Every structure is written in C-alpha cells, then in structure tokens.
C-alpha cells in the first residue's frame, strides 16, 4: 500500500528518522484522514491540529539537525480523554468536566511529549471509563469502522476506532476491566493492558484506583510494544508504581514475529468454557482456529483450573464501583468543572447535589450508588470485604496456573461488536462483555488482545494473559499469531464512507 495512513507506526518512525517522510507530512495525513472520516466515526472529542503540527515541525527540525531521536519520534498519537493533557480539554466524556482545561500533564502525557510524538487529539469513551460500548459518553457515540451500526467497544471505543479507521497509527487507552482489550477485539486492533503498577496512573482520571492501567492501542503487537516502552516505567508520583525495569516487550514482539513458539506452554482456563457463560459460536470458531495456529508454531496447550474466575464479574462489580464512588466524590462543582444551581437560592449541599445530578450520566450514577451501598455500614463486610477475599483467591488461581504455564489464552470477549442499543437496557448483558478480561485486572498481571479472525464479518480477538511483570510473553505470543496471518486484520477493514 502506498498511503501514509496505511503504514505501521514502526514503518512511519523509520521513514521519519531516515528522511523518507517528514513528521509534518505524516501528521498532516492523519489530520486529513480525521477530517475525512471522523464526521462518520466520531472517535475524537477534540482535535489539536495546531499542537500536533507544532510538535511535528520540531521533530523535522531535529531530524535535519541530525539529532538523536526516540523510537517513535514524529509518529502521531491519539489519547483517550481520561488522560490529563495540559492545555487540552480533558473531560473523561462527562458533562461534569466539560470545559475543564488541565493545568498539568499526566506522567504518560509527559512521556509522550518527551518522545516527541504529536498528539492528534482526545478520543471518545464511556463516561469515566464505565461501559463496554462507548454508548455512555456524554458527547455522543462512536461508530465501529467495520460496521457503523455497531459499537466500537468500550470504554476506549474512541481510541480503538481511531486506530481501526486509520485516523491515528497509535492511541493511548486505559483498562480497568477490559477497556483496552475489548475495544481492540471488536475493532480488529491490538491492545495491551500492562502489569498494574508498571505504567504510571498519575494524571489518569481515576475510575477504580486498584484496577486502572493505561496502555497502548495499535494495529499490531510491535507498534504496541514500541509505545509500551515509551510510556512504561517507574514513577515516584504514583505510590502504587512498581520500581523495576520495564519487561523487554519490543524484543519479545520481534521474537514472536519469527513465528517460533516452541517450548511455550499456553494455559486454557477450564472454567471459561464451562462456567458462567461460554462465548458465542462464531467467536469460539475464530478463536479455536487461532489456537490451532499457535500450536502449529510449537506452543503446548495445558488446561488450567481457576475456579474463582466464576466469581470475577461480581467481585469486579463490587470493588470497582466502591472505589469509583469515592474517587468521583471530588466532582462537586466547588473547584472546577460544572456547577449547577449556584443562584443564591440553594445551599452549598444543594449546589453539590444539583451539580452531580446534572453532571453525571446514568451508568456513572448507577455505579456510584452501587459502590456507596457496598461500602456502607452493615454491608461493607458482606460486599466490599467479601469481594477483596475473592480477589485474593483469583490472584492465587493465576499464581498457581503460572507455575505450570507461561501464558494463559482465551477469547478476549464473548461476542462480536453488538448493535447500538442492544445491551444498554440490561446492565448485566453489557457487563458480560468483560467476562474474560476482568480476572487479569483483579490479579494485576498483563493481558493483550490480538486480532484472530472474523465472525459474521466482524473482528474477533484472542487474549494472552501473563504473570505480573511478564508482559513480554504476552507480546511474543500475540506477534507469533500475527505472523501466521497473510495480512494484518486491521488492514482488511472495509473502507469508510466519508463525511
């Protein structure tokens, strides 16, 4: 292919570094693509043309001056609107933060800027990252580039759709229960949730502090790994950060691309197949075909039993809303964001209530209520406390499994992208989208989703889960799977009708 937007991030970086393309040309191509198709897809909440081109020009000047540049210098990127960007609107897709301009940068924003990557803009998401379809954005839905009648996944539907529609070669997502991996699976893109604590949460608008993890969204594993290494690493501003070297994910992705998995033991979780609910047949078929490929590359399959995974979904829906109910308490109209009812006739307490009533959407309110209840006196032991105990069991199940396997594989999500409105009426049906991704969040280990095939013409993802700080194995397996595909799935998406 000849178009700039069809190239991978690794190719673009090399072209810029070696003078075949300028960053301004590359950035302009993606900005033009956004202009051409985002009126249809609506992946972006805010586009920063000027800022992106300014960074691109800096990179081009640096290239001309013969300066040493980082591995992704000049390659543009889209950032999920839950990551704080100094001077750029950051709303977490909530009315309560509409118009707020952050006075500071998140650590990962700083690292993206230090890597000289032009920031194209901020992408749409479910409000405060609560949802699996991006339908809960306060600013409208994002469409799946593969079928505009279907959801792009969530919460990071904007980042996934932007990469799938080639409006950005790379994007930042955040994953609390599957918000990077599930959108990746349903849009045919690659997404990685790194080990909790290996990527700084400083400046990431908190949903559930003990689960939130920022990570890369890309078209393939190598691009994801390159971005992973740019944003990862210890940050003294995050007390839960792990002070250890970043796992060598780029090297692992390159090793995987050679197509050799001999000696790699892959675990298959027994309970995923027979427990709370199996995936739909088309998803299973695509997934099993992928597993067959992995075996051909030399991987050995071992069944592992993780009985507590059956309780992962309810455990998650107690812990995450509990933390969210407290994390979202700060949105009260006092210091920033929306303020409602401040007309001299309402008390301070009433202004806070009116602000929260007007500023939060239905899913956010549902989870605040759920979490408040789960933490309240008389219930905290039975709900939040019990969920923490189960979380420990889930960790133990993973640890035991990783004694006998190198990585665990599963479908990323039980079903392909569903149609708009199909699951908003029943929260539980929506929550099921994260059935296979949630255990990894509760454990704290890494998980990636890599495109594995199609079902009903829609992409299906295969998830690779690794041990804590074992991110490299997940990239290796994902890249190996990609090596069996003639064309990247992301390159086979139907062309989008322009505006």
């Amino acid at each position, binding site marked *: 292919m000849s178009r700039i937007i069809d190239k991978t991030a690794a190719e673009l970086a090399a072209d810029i570094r070696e003078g075949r393309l300028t960053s301004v040309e590359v950035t302009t191509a993606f900005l033009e693509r956004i202009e051409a198709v985002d009126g249809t897809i609506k992946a972006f909440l805010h586009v920063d043309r000027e800022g992106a081109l300014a960074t691109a020009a800096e990179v081009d000047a640096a290239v001309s001056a013969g300066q040493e540049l980082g591995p992704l210098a000049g390659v543009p990127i889209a950032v999920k609107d839950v*990551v*704080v960007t100094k001077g750029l609107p*950051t709303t*977490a897709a909530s009315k309560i*933060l509409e118009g*707020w301009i*952050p*006075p*500071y940068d*998140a650590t990962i924003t700083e690292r993206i800027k230090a890597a000289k990557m032009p920031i194209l803009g901020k992408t749409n998401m479910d409000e405060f990252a609560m949802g699996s379809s991006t339908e809960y954005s306060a600013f409208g839905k994002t469409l799946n580039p593969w079928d505009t009648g279907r959801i792009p996944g969530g919460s990071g539907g904007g980042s996934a759709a932007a990469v799938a529609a080639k409006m950005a070669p790379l994007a930042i997502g955040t994953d609390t229960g599957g918000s990077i991996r599930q959108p990746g699976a349903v849009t045919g893109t690659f997404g990685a949730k790194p080990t909790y604590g290996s990527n700084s*949460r*400083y*400046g*990431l*608008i*908190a949903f*559930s*502090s*003990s689960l939130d993890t920022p990570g890369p969204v890309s078209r393939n594993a190598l691009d994801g790994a390159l971005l992973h290494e740019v944003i990862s690493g210890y940050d*003294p*501003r*995050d*007390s*839960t950060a792990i002070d250890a070297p970043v796992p060598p994910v780029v090297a692992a992705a390159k090793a995987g691309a050679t197509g050799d998995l001999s000696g790699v033991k892959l675990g298959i979780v027994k309970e995923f197949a027979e427990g709370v609910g199996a995936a739909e047949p088309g998803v299973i078929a695509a997934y099993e075909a992928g597993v067959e490929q992995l075996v051909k590359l030399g991987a050995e399959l071992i069944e592992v039993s993780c009985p507590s995974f059956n309780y992962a979904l309810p455990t998650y829906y107690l812990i995450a809303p*509990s*933390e969210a*109910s*407290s994390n979202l*308490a*700060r949105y*009260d109209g*006092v*210091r*920033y964001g929306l303020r409602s009812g401040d007309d*001299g006739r309402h008390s*301070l*307490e009433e202004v*806070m209530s009116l602000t929260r009533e007007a500023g939060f959407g239905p899913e956010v309110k549902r989870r605040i209520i759920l979490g*408040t209840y789960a*933490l*309240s*006196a008389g219930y*905290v032991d039975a709900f*939040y406390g019990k969920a923490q105990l189960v979380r420990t069991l889930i960790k133990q199940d993973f640890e035991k499994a990783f004694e006998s396997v190198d990585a665990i594989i599963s479908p990323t999500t039980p079903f392909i992208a569903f149609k708009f409105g199909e699951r908003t009426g029943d929260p539980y049906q929506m929550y099921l989208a994260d059935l296979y991704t949630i255990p990894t969040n509760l454990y704290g280990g890494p998980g990636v989703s890599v495109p594995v095939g199609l079902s009903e013409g829609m992409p299906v993802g295969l998830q690779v889960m690794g041990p804590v700080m074992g991110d490299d194995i997940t990239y290796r397996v994902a890249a190996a799977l990609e090596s069996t595909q003639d064309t990247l799935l992301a390159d086979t998406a139907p062309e989008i009708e322009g505006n």
Partner: protein
Amino acid sequence: MTKLNDYDKAVETYEPVLGLETHIELDTNTKMFCGCSTAFGAEPNTQTCPVCLALPGALPVANRAAIEATIKIGLALNCHIAEWTRFARKNYFYPDMPKNFQTSQYEEPLCENGYVDVVVDGKEYRVEIERVHLEEDTGKTLHVGGATGRIHGATESLVDYNRAGIPLVEIVTKPVPGTGALAPEVAKAYTAELRDIVRSLGVSDVRMEQGSLRCDVNLSLNLPGEEWGTRTETKNVNSLRSVERAVRYEVRRQSALLDAGERIFQETRHFQETTGETRAGRSKEEATDYRYFPEPDLAVMEPSREWVEELRATLPELPRKRRERLQAEWSLGDKEMQSVVNADAVDLIQATVDAGTTPSGAVKWWLGELSRRANESGEELAALAITPKQVAELQGMVDDGRLNDKLARQVIDGVLAGEGDPADVAAKRGLEVVSDTGALEAAVEEAIAANPAVADKIRGGTHAAAGVLIGAVMKATKGQADAGTVRQIILDKLS
C-alpha cells in the same frame, strides 16, 4: 436554660470517665501527600497543587518525614509501632475537603497501645493510649457577607486550601476512669504532658492558639459500681484551660440531667470559649456513615524494626526526665515544682534562667505576680504579653538595685501594655530607684528636720525607729529610693 449541678456535689454522686482525642499538625516542610509548603499565614490558595486541590487524575505520595514524626510520637508515648499499616479513606462531603474524602487510617493505625503518666495533687495517673494515627488536615472555609461570619446569612463562602493536606497526627486515649473529682485536672495535665512530649520531639510547634494542637474531650458519668454511662464528645477545646473547663461543665451538665432522670445522648458538642459552655452539635446517632475502606492509591507501609530502633535512638530527653533534672538544678521542693508544672511554667522559667537570671528570681515572677495577672485576665501564662527575656531583664534590674519589687510591678504594667522592654518602660515612666546620693541625702536631711524626736531616738541607739524616717523619704521620692540605701544614710548621719 441548661440546668447545671454544683461541681463538688456532682462528683460526690457520680464517677466521671474521661477520653481524649488530640489532633496535632506536624511541622514538616511539605504536606502529607504532595510537595506543597506548610508555612502558616501565606496568601490564600498559594500553597496548592493538583494533588492537594484534588484535580482529576492527581495522586498522593506519603511524606516520609511525617511517618517518621508519627513513629517518634508513638515511641515517646510507649506505643507499639505496627509492622504493617495502611491508610484508609474516610468518605464525607465538605467543601474544604478537596477530595470529599479524608485520607486517614482506620483499622491499621501506625502506633497502638501506649501510655502517659501524669501527676495531679501528688498522685500519679496512667492515661492509656489506644492509637496514634496519621491523616491530613482540611482547608478552611470563610463565610462572608453575613453579620456573624457563620454560614447562616452569608452571601459567599470562600475556601483556602493552603491547610488542606497538612499532616495531622491523631492521638486517642482509652477511656480513663478513676480520676474522681480531679477529672478536669487530669485531662488538663494529660494534654499539657502530651503537648510537652511532642514539643520535645521537635515535630510540631503544638500551639493551641494557632490550631496546631486541637482537643476533643469525651466524658461520661456513672454511679459507683454501675456500668459506664453514655459519653458526649466535646470539640473545639483549644486551650489547656478550656480542657479543664469543658470537663467541669460536662460533669455539671450531665449530672443535672441524670439527677432529673433524663438520659444522656451520645452526641458531638462544641465548647464555647467565651461562656465556658458546651453546645449540642449534630447527633452521633444520625451521623454520617464514613464508608471507610483501604486507600488504594497508597502503598501499604511496613516500618522495619531497624528503622523503628534508629528512630528510638534519636528520641530526646522527654519532659518527665527533664522536669526531674530541672527540679534538682533549680533546687525546688516537690510541691514547688508541682506548682511550676501546674502553672505550665517549666519552659517559661527555663527560658528566663537561660536569659541570665537566677532560678529563684524566675520562679518568683512567673508563679507570683505573673500567674496572678494571668488568672485575672483568664489567659494562659504563656499568652501574657511578656517574654522570658523581659522577665530576666526585670529581675536583673532588681538585682542591680535599679528597681525594687514595687517599682518592678509597675514596670510589668508597662510591658504588658506594650510600652517596650523593662528598661524602656522604667525610663519612660520614670520608675528607676533614686540612686543619686546627693538627692537622697537632701531628702534624709528634710526628714530629720521634720521629725526631731525620732532623730533623737536613733541617736540614742534605737535603730528600729529609722523606719519612720525611711517611710518619709520613700514618700518624698515616690517610692523610687532603695530602702536599704536610705537606711544606711540615716544611720550614718545620726550615729
């Protein structure tokens, strides 16, 4: 109108049980969870950042110096330092609390199970410490536009977040029974001892008037041999004297209710500095559910035993040891030393001695004239507008014969009125002892001439009669002569 019993009658019938919760602001350079300055008195909202303003995405990182200071306090209070401890969130909405939760500690405090011994009326009382934990302070809300400065009637509320996030140590006692009629004094002695311990550690300036040490007083009453009664918690008790008054008031109020067959409600009350009353606040029974849970943004703390021992080795001489040493150095008896302690004058006397005066001179002023004045004005001794250095200067002038005690008291008037240091006041008010012997001799001559019969008696050897002439000279010099000098001149002239 609140019915109050006579205090002595109340404690004849009921046994009080005390409990004290003390908050101490640490004087670390930076806040508990961010790098902002903690300096007092800066322009509003100039010492803030994304973390202490709770901007979206900001995260806390615990201040190691604050953890060290808290461990030191725990060690000085004979506590066990936890091997495993963590922060917890206390959730409630309040505009001066940026996150709408306070990062505090709940089931796993940093320090537990200690004690403080205090002596009241020659008897030792052991106050057991339940826990010492670390948390953060809130901002301050200012209600403007109303007549009272309270929220009611205000047109605007302004919030200053400079104080938000300053490290706060909370020290909670176990219930203290068995103090009987001395409950107010024990409560005060404990608070003073705690303050002195913390001050000796150099981790807080523990100034009650600036709010860096704040007390909540719990009190219940029960009949002898019966179970403890329902307690009230009185907040806003912000001086040693107020601690004593608050306990006394609650004993009188609760005993009157119990006598009338009424029940005591478990409630929060507020101490009124001006009237000495406690007033009901919100009832604990309908209080907020704080929904505590472990703070997921902060790593668990596991203070190593080596670190704890290192900190123990840095502990200074604690107040009790120091008092024993000073008592010996100052050659004071037990009772006299107890008076010094009760008057909260140890540091003042020490500073006065350090400024160059004798211990007896320093004790004389602080326990005598200055205590009397503090009592009259209802102030703490340390709050009087006179410094130990000024007291030392005053006593120095007495020692030099430039002032006598009577003049010195007038000089104190001037110092307290803000007229300057003792020497300035003496000069401005013309209060120096007359040391011009020419002037004194003239005054003596006049006195002799006016009292010939007395002069004859002295000439006849009755030296005691000199008093009459001395009195006359003192009167003529308006008290500014040194009586000893005058006596010597008289005797020289008449023998």
